[in-house]
Structure formats: structure tokens, C-alpha cells
């Protein structure tokens, strides 16, 4: 045991820390997705007056494992007319990119793979790359539904990225730092949801758009464009795209918690537990919304993004700046 603990010294080496942290994060995310998907299916099942999975394992907890096996063993269909290289690459890139932003997410003051001094910028930059595999998946199968879904995803991304970045500026102004750890540390006395109420609203809407779930699930929009940008994907490729989507939801919830809800701060329980509890609650709200509101239309969504969220975020920045100057 002592020998094992002494190995922790090696964590000071950034290469070792990155490798161990990266693998650990990937496993933790995969594990939490299994759990969250089960929670979501049960929770939404209950909201929709049905039981949800209850056949495989106790309370259907192994349902996802069975579904995974099914998707793994399914025939891997590549359409004849598809651009085959791009078609094969899209799920892989999407899956890989989805994990990247977590490297800069702090789970406590020390539990962070890499405390970049521009952490929030890194996260924004990497998560906006997610639209590239989405467009690849939309374009490559040569299917019109995929294409429409991919185009919608691109339109969606433009309209949430800008207000999201602007909303974060308010937070950065309050902390004087772009490091994720510093941002959470600055919330020790008061969560940013209070001084940044307007920014919070803008950010939450934008983050929910990033999660691309109802009411913003336009790229998929089952009742309109079948399955959107994932229509032609089956088997493991589909599972990977689905996983990547889900990781985006988790990231969106985590960002809301870290930027506005005090991150790891909380009484009694240790820091990482608090951040997980808060993220879980935000995820539950995401799931709840999915089961209760209709889908918005593409033009309405763009209107909200450009005509409401961006001006609100601007006002927020002006307000925060003025307050800082006056209050010192």
C-alpha cells in the first residue's frame, strides 16, 4: 500500500498525470453515462406514465449493457453512395473530441488533469470543434435527412456559441482569470448565479442548446427529419455518435455548475462529491425538460440566439463592467 502511495509522486510529472488522468476520466465518463442513461430512461419513463426498463438486472440497470451488446453485434452498414472515409471517420472523431474538454474541468482544487491558465477558452474551443464530426456525419452518407440534420446542427452551433462565450465573459470579469480552478475559488463566498443572474440565464439556454436535446434537438428532430444527422448510421457507429452527444450534455451541465453554481463548494461533503451532486441535479432538469416541452422551430431558435441571447449577454457585460468600476 505504501509502495502504491509512493507512486503518486510520479503524478507530478505532467506526462504521467495527463495519461493517468485522461484514461481515468474516460473510464469515469463512460461509467457515469451508463448510470445516467439508466436514470434518464427510468425518470422519463415515470414522467411518461410508464415503467422504463425493468427486465434486465435489478430495476433494469443492466439494460444499457444489453443494448450495447446489441449495437456492437449489429451489421455495420455503410451506404453505397456514401463518402466512405468520411463516413467511417465521423463517429471516431466525434467520440474523441467529446472527451477533450474534460481535461480542463476541475473536480476539486487539485483534481484536475491540467489547470490551464486559459481553461475556459480551451473548453470553448474544443467543444465547438464538435460541429466538425456532426457536419461530416451529415454530409458523408449522401442522405438528405442526414444533410438537413447536419446543416441544422451547424446553424444551432453558431447561435449558441456566441452568446455562450459572451456570457462567460461576465464570469471572467468577476474572477480576473480564465483558469477554471480560479473561477471556482472566486465563488467561495457567493455563487456567480447571484451577481451574474442575467449571464446565468443566457448561459443555461446556450448550454441546453449545446446539449442538443429537446426543446433544442433540431439536428435529430425525430418527427421531422427521421433521425437527422445520425439517420444512416447503425450499430457501433451510431452508438459512438450517441455517446458523444450524451457527453456533450454532461459537459454542458458541468459547465453550468462550475461557472455559476459554485463548483465544488458546499458544506460537509468532500469537494468532488458536491460537484457530482450538482451536475446530477442539472442533468435531471435537462431530462425533465426533454419530457415536457415541444421542440422549437429552426427560425425561432435562431431568433432566440441572435435577437435575445446575444443582446442580453451584451447588457450583462456592460452591467458587470460598470458595477466593477463603481464598486472597485
Amino acid at each position, binding site marked *: 500500500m505504501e509502495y502504491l502511495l509512493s507512486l503518486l509522486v510520479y503524478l507530478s510529472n505532467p506526462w504521467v498525470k495527463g495519461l493517468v488522468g485522461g484514461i481515468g476520466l474516460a473510464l469515469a465518463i463512460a461509467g457515469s453515462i451508463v448510470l445516467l442513461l439508466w436514470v434518464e430512461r427510468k425518470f422519463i419513463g415515470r414522467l*411518461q406514465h410508464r415503467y422504463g426498463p425493468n427486465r434486465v438486472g435489478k430495476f433494469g440497470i443492466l439494460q444499457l449493457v444489453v443494448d450495447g451488446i446489441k449495437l456492437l453485434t449489429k451489421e455495420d452498414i455503410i451506404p453505397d453512395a456514401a463518402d466512405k472515409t468520411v463516413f467511417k471517420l465521423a463517429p471516431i472523431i466525434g467520440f474523441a473530441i467529446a472527451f477533450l474538454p474534460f481535461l480542463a474541468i476541475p473536480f476539486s482544487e487539485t483534481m484536475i488533469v491540467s489547470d490551464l491558465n486559459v481553461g475556459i477558452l480551451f473548453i470553448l474551443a474544443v467543444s465547438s470543434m464538435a460541429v466538425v464530426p456532426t457536419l461530416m456525419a451529415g454530409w458523408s452518407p449522401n442522405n*438528405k435527412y442526414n444533410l438537413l440534420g447536419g446543416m441544422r446542427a451547424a446553424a444551432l452551433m453558431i447561435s449558441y456559441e456566441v452568446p455562450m462565450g459572451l456570457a462567460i465573459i461576465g464570469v471572467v470579469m468577476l474572477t480576473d482569470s480564465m483558469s477554471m480552478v480560479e473561477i471556482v475559488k472566486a465563488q467561495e463566498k457567493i455563487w456567480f448565479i447571484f451577481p451574474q443572474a442575467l449571464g446565468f440565464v443566457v448561459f443555461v439556454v446556450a448550454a441546453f442548446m449545446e446539449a442538443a436535446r*429537446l*426543446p433544442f434537438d433540431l439536428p435529430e*428532430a425525430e418527427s421531422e427529419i427521421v433521425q437527422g444527422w445520425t439517420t444512416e448510421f447503425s450499430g457501433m457507429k451510431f452508438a459512438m455518435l450517441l455517446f458523444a452527444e450524451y457527453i456533450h450534455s454532461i459537459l454542458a451541465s458541468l459547465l453550468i455548475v462550475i461557472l455559476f453554481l459554485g463548483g465544488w463548494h458546499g458544506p460537509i461533503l468532500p469537494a468532488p462529491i458536491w460537484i457530482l451532486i450538482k451536475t446530477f441535479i442539472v442533468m435531471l432538469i435537462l431530462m425533465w425538460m426533454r419530457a415536457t416541452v415541444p421542440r422549437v422551430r429552426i427560425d425561432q431558435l435562431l431568433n432566440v440566439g441572435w435577437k435575445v441571447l446575444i443582446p442580453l449577454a451584451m447588457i450583462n457585460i456592460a452591467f458587470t463592467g460598470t458595477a466593477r468600476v463603481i464598486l472597485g
Partner: protein
Amino acid sequence: MMPLRKFEYEEIGEGRLVINLGPQHPSTHGVLRLIAELDGERVKKVLPIIGYLHRGFEKIAENRNYPMIVPLTDRLDYLSAMSNNMVYCQAIEELMNIKISERTEYIRVIVLELQRIASHLASVGFFGNDVGVTFTAMMYTFRERELIINLFETLSGARLTYNYIRIGGLREDLPKGFENNVLQSIDIIEKKVDEYEEFFSENEIFRRRTQGIGVLKLKDAINLGATGPVLRGSGLKSDVRVTDPYTIYDRFDWDIITEKKGDCFARYNIWINEIRQSISIVRQALNGLPKGEINVKIPRVIKPEPGEVYSKIESPRGELAMNVISDGTPKPYRLKIRSPAFCNLSLLPTISEEGLIADLIATLGSIDPVFGEVDR
């Protein structure tokens, strides 16, 4: 396979995309195929193609004895089999001048109105699916629809194809305790309808997705032969139950629901409010339900005199009518169905062009075609 109606590919404009919605698509209400020409997300042209559920009903009917056609009618509008039974039996009764017993008339009104409630509940649920409350709305409305289906199961043993209304009467009298069960069920439904209003009508996104979408002007509605909730949604006070009363509808006190705007929200509102009116009619009918015989004496072999009859009722989807021509044999010479879903579907291109794809789907949901009836 025969070539379908030609879509003028030469006419497709620059930068346009022609997309096939259906016949396998999550929200084409069965097997409708829509060819849509898109400019980005905007729908420039819609061409509905039907016939994927065609079973030759009218031709089959020519080769069957009159009573053997009743179970066939169940398969027309499978969301309201009672209405189909009713219109057929009523047509034959008119053709043969059969007078129905008083109790049967009341029971028919009760089951028809219950059927209307069930059908409208299903329509609201599907419409919810179409605007994107995926599954939740449907599960809720189907929970209440289940109450009525259970009632019909005690009546006829079937849950979808009831075959309950027969020529000259009914399959059998109401089972014991049926009246009470109906009262309890409609009490529950009445409360739940208020909940739907909170869930849908007060939801901002739902309103924005449906108000001002798929507007059908009254003039177009009349010219294109719309009936039922689609016509009333555009503002005309027209309902066969009042304009041309059949059975005993003239004895009850209720209102025709109309809306002015003619958009998707108006048509949805008609469903919700008609459920309330139907509940009121069922209550009144249960109050006045007389005792007595169910079936009247009819000949063993039904052989109407040569002649023709056109008989219509207000089905949940609109004016459902049958035109039966008899040549004096035990089989009809010709049986023609005027199906409201078919006529209402024909105005889809008029009201969905120049909208977005999402609007096209919402509009289709608000017209609510049932393909058993469109294709026959």
C-alpha cells in the same frame, strides 16, 4: 409497379432539394408519402401520394352479403370503428325503412360520443408527437383513451374493431354496471382534459409552434371540401349532428365548437373542446336512457328493394357518408364511401406550402388523417 404520379423534376428550381417523407416516416400518420420540394428548410411544394393501405374495400363490399360488410367497416377509420359501423348500418336501415328501438338510439349516441372522445384523445396525442413533445403527450392521452377502450371491450369483446352496431340494432344490450363505469370514466377524462390544456395550450413553445401555422381560410375550406374539426377550425358552424340530425342528436343540448383563426392551434382547440361537449352529450344520454328491446325484427336475409341511399354522420374526422346502391339482391350493387380524412388531406398542399418542414409536419398532424379511411 405502376409509375406513381409524375413529379415534374424538370421544374425543380436552382438550389432546391426534393425530399421523400414517407411512406415510412415517424410522423406521416401511417403510410402517407409526401414529396416535398425544399428551399433550405422552406417547403416550396408538397405532393401527397396515397394508396399504400388500399385494400379495395368498396369492391370487396360488392361481393358480400349486407350483414357481412359490418366487420369490414371496422377497418376503415381504425381510430373510430363505431362511427363506421354506424354510418353503414344507418344507410342500410334507411334503405330498408327499418325503425330502430328507442333504447338502441340512446346507446348508439352514447357509444358514438365515447368514440369521438377516444378518437380526439388519440389525435391530441399524435399531434403532441408531431410538434415534438415526443411520446409524453401520447402516453398521457392514451392513458385516458384506454378507459374508453376498456368500456368498449366490455361491450363487444374487441378493443379496436368493435363490430358492435348492427343492422337493425346492436350486437347485444349494455353489460351490467356499464352506465356507472361510463360516468366514472368521463369524470376522470373531464379532469384530465383540463390538465392537457395546462400542458399544451399554456405552453409558450406549443403556442408558437401552432398559432398562425397552416392557416386555412374559410373560403378555401369550403371550396376544398373540408369537414369536421378542420372546417370548424376555420370558423363555419357546421356539424352533421345539427345541420342534418341523425338518430336522436336533436334531443340533446350542446354547442358546436368553432374557432376563427383556422390555424393548427384552432384545430387542436376544437378537439379539446369537443371532448367536453361529447362528455356532456354522454351524460344527457345516460340520464334519458330508456328500458326496452335492443334489436328490432329484420328479415333473415337482408335484401333491400332496388334503390339508392346516401347516408351521412359526423365522424370524429368530419362528414362520413356512404352511398349504397341496391339492385334487389342480397349484395350491394355499389358502395361508395365519402371519407372525411381523404377530403381533408387533399387541402394539405394549400396550407403547408411556403412553411418550414416543421410546420408541414405540425399541419399534417392537425389535419389528422387516418389511412385506413383515406385509402380504403
